[in-house]
């Protein structure tokens, strides 16, 4: 990103590169584009994930498994198609921008309803956006509503509703922004912006599937394979705006790599979304949007921060990814991964000078639940040790990690930011929010919101400097499907899979039962 002219050239080639990548994808993923085959309804699909989904609330879901499940249960105002374009979701049409790019008019499809039958209107959209910011929600995705006028008042508890969101009619609303942000509609396609009813705790949405009653947390139905034990089971929602999904039921279960491969081999699991490849499966890598940064807490380290930052920046990320990250991943040489830049690859940063000064002994905080982060932390520990920085690795549960990361209670931390958009400015907004809080996020948006594409690399580089976070790598998951068994798994450019489009080629259940 520092070689601005090269970056500009690369960014200019983005649409072409994206098109070429998707064409190649379609060729390598034969089940996706089988023409002339009519989708069949029926059957139950069991999908293996890195973990069994627990959090379906789109405002709170952060892990890959939770987000996959939340996408099945919730619906967003807009959607991202496989080519990166926006298309209407709950909205009847793409939002109309007012002159200046600071306000957008949105019109909902008529007759929308939630799973519980309650109507979904403009007021629910306004409430969902405000909910992201409300202190009681404690959403890590508050960045979605942060650009809207009145966000600060809601975020600090001084107001309950966003002053920038006007409900014009039951299906129409106007969203005014605090700063010009032409890419704001991209934010409305991100999962956290999904509309939820004012009550329901995030488990009720308007997506293609609804949580089965009794709760999907109960044991799977009789006859299901052992792999489905404890799975999250969702059933079709007849009232979805696109109509009833093809599948009769969708079960999402967390399995480790070996168990996933074993159950896949037995035919119990037809689809696995995990980092590792599965033998004899048709595989597709999702875009690497889960960016991992080494955050340096300058406030705590003071004078020691800079030597440590330089030592981290000097780590060979290509080697790091190759040796310690399991599954698809790409080294990060800038703030945002290539997938979030629309497919272009940012030029690598110049090699960092060796650290000077004594950084003393530090602690590297890492979430014990984040995949591969412990291994990456071990690598950082060794490489920092080689450069005279003694680091203790402290692995804590995800809940503890989240709290300490929010309070910046660490010397160094491995922070994973699952980027929700494939557009640079919204992605930078999310990264800045996750790494340094709302103030920095808003300031970065003010600088980036209306920047032309030529100036974007410089702005991103400047933001990276300010965030005191060293980008390490961006990881992704692999979708492995049993050949000749499943159709309609083509993900959007943002990695989202709409299970409402998925159907089974043969009328048998995904857990091996006829």
């Amino acid at each position, binding site marked *: 990103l520092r070689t601005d002219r090269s970056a500009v050239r690369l960014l200019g080639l983005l649409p072409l590169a994206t098109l070429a990548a998707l064409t190649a994808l379609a060729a390598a993923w034969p089940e996706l584009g089988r023409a002339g085959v009519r989708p069949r309804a029926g059957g139950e699909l069991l999908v293996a994930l890195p973990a069994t989904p627990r959090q379906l609330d789109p405002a709170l879901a952060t892990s890959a498994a939770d987000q996959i499940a939340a996408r099945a249960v919730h619906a967003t105002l807009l959607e991202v198609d496989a080519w990166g374009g926006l298309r209407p979701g709950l909205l009847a049409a793409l939002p109309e921008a007012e002159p200046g790019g600071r306000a957008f008019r949105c019109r909902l499809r008529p007759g929308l309803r939630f799973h519980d039958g309650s109507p979904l209107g403009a007021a629910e959209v306004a409430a969902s956006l405000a909910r992201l910011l409300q202190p009681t929600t404690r959403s890590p995705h508050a960045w979605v509503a942060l650009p809207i006028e009145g966000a600060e008042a809601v975020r600090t508890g001084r107001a309950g509703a966003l002053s920038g969101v006007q409900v014009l009619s039951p299906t129409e609303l106007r969203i005014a922004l605090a700063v010009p942000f032409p890419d704001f509609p991209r934010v409305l396609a991100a999962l956290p912006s999904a509309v939820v009813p004012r009550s329901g705790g995030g488990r009720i949405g308007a997506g293609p599937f609804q949580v089965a009653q009794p709760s999907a947390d109960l044991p799977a139905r009789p006859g299901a394979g052992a792999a489905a034990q404890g799975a999250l089971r969702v059933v079709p929602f007849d009232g979805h705006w696109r109509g009833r999904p093809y599948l009769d039921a969708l079960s999402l279960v967390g399995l480790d790599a070996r168990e996933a491969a074993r159950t896949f081999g037995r035919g119990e699991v037809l689809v696995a979304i995990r980092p*590792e490849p599965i033998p004899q499966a048709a595989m597709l890598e999702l875009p690497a949007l889960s960016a991992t940064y080494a955050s340096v807490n300058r406030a705590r380290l003071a004078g020691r921060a800079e030597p440590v930052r330089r030592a981290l920046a000097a780590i060979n990320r290509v*080697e790091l990814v*190759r*040796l*310690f*990250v*399991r599954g698809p991943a790409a080294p990060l040489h800038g703030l945002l991964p290539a997938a979030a830049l629309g497919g272009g690859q940012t030029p690598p940063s110049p090699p960092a000078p060796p650290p000077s000064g004594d950084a003393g*002994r530090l602690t590297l905080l890492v979430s014990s639940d984040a995949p*591969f982060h412990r*291994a990456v*932390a*071990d*690598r*950082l*520990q*060794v*490489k920092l*040790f080689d450069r005279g920085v*003694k*680091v*203790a*690795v402290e692995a804590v549960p995800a809940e503890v990690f989240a709290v300490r990361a929010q309070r910046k209670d660490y010397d160094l931390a491995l922070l994973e930011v699952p980027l929700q958009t494939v557009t640079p400015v919204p992605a930078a907004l999310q990264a800045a929010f996750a790494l340094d809080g709302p103030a920095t996020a808003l300031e970065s948006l003010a600088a980036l919101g209306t920047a032309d594409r030529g100036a974007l690399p410089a702005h991103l580089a400047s933001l990276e400097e300010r965030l005191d976070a060293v980008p390490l790598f961006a990881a992704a998951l692999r979708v492995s499907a049993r050949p000749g068994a499943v159709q309609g798994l083509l993900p959007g450019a943002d990695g989202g899979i709409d299970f409402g489009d998925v159907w089974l080629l043969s009328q048998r259940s995904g857990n091996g039962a006829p």
Partner: protein
Amino acid sequence: VTLRAKLTVAFALFAAVPMLLPLYWVNRALSDALSTEYGARLESAARAVEGEVRRLSAEAAAGARELARSPELEGLARDRVAGQLDVAEAAARAKEWMGARSLDVLAVAEPNGQVVSSGHLPGRAGDVDPELGALFSESPPGAAVARFVSRATPSGVEPVLALVAWEPVAGDLRVAAGIALGPSFAERLGALTGGDVTLVDQGTARPLASYPAQGARLRAFLSGFLRLPQGQVRSIPLGPLGHDARPLAVVEVTLSAAGLARAETTVVVAFLSALALAVLAATLFGHALAGRITRPLEALRAGALRVAAGDLSRKVEARATGEVADLVAAFNAMVADLASSQARAAAAERVAAWREVARRLAHEIKNPLTPIAMSVETLRDALEGGRPDFKEIFDEGTTAIQQEVRRLKRIVDEFSRFARLPAPELAPVAPEELVDALLALYPAPPSGIRIEREVAPSLPKVNVDRDQILQLLLNLTANGVEAMGATGGVLRIAAVALDGAGAVLFSVADTGPGIAQDQLPRIFEPYFTTKEGGTGLGLAIAERIATEHGGRLSVTSEVGRGATFTLRLPAVAG
């Protein structure tokens, strides 16, 4: 220090010294015997340490051997050769294998040390680990050696001492397995040897682990501070010798020397108890014996001190025999001679003094007798000659005789006063009151003479016979007034505190002609006078009064500038 004390100490020493010498030899012999037994225990502990190191070495070598032949490692090597190895997945495998086999060090690497998978330092995968490279090149396979290995610990990457062995694996790989020699190793050795164990890095002299681990430093400090017995340290080398001919590390085993110290202490305490009893007995006996020897000498010493103080009345009473008895007798005889000599001298002195008084008295009386005799002879001649002016001559003659007779009477009265001055009757009197009473006698001083009063405030009282001291001060005042005579002057009567109020100083100072320097030493002698018609007894009486009050009368003078008489009297205590 008295002779008696010296003799007592000498007796105690004579008892102690012969007992101390055997104590040294007995203690030394006992110490040698116990040290031999202690040395045997230390040697046994060293053998136990060496045995434990051999056992762990064999365990590490067996671990490496078992892993080299394990299906897991063969599978990894096969995948690697086939190019199907997931390097990220492989990097994490060694950690799983290490945990399952209770090893502390485990790495799979290429012959040059490039790590494929490391359990003890997972983050090293993909790098060339110089520690592993050195192990492969310097040590033969199958034999564990002590080495320092960088290991990921909860507090960061740290070098740990470990017994590490390696074995070749198919596919040109090598597996290194080891067991750390850390706190648990020290604890095990502590249990085996029953002593304190410290593992020391010979390169830095830094302790790597110790048992007991808690408070080892505090114990060392306390035992040093309290001078507790220190056990001997036996060092067992670990690892190959380096360039400086020193091993990589040593195990230091210290066995408690408490038993040894206890036995020695028991013997020493027993000896010291006997010594204390002997010294006590010798001291008591010596004290009594010295008393018998020194008692006559102490009586002589006391007698000599009494004689020096002027007491010649008492004889030295001491039971003694031999030379000491002769010495006592000679001393008593000498004191008796001295007493009689003193009595004779005093008597002679008294005779001489009275002779002098008689001479002066006779001289004083002789002076008026001559005019009386001449007047009587003149009257007789006038009467026999029938002088017509006999009446005038008679009046003149008898008048002269009367004058001289009065003079004779005054001389006799003064002498009588001097000889029969009564003993003072002491009572506390304020100096201010004395001065005021004195001045009352001179309410109107003679013309041309001014009397000044200077009395310091808050003077302590003096213990005096009020009348006698007033008489003394009146005498001084009258002398001063008389000395200034018609020329006039100032008479200053003062009283001030002296010696931190332990005394009061009265002074009477005139501005008269003063007293000649050659007369000053004699001024208080009886019958010495410079005045026409003076008896020469006034100042002598005054000086005697001052002496009988425990005070002192003195004079200073300069001719032409007056004289100052000062009376120093002790103040009433409290």
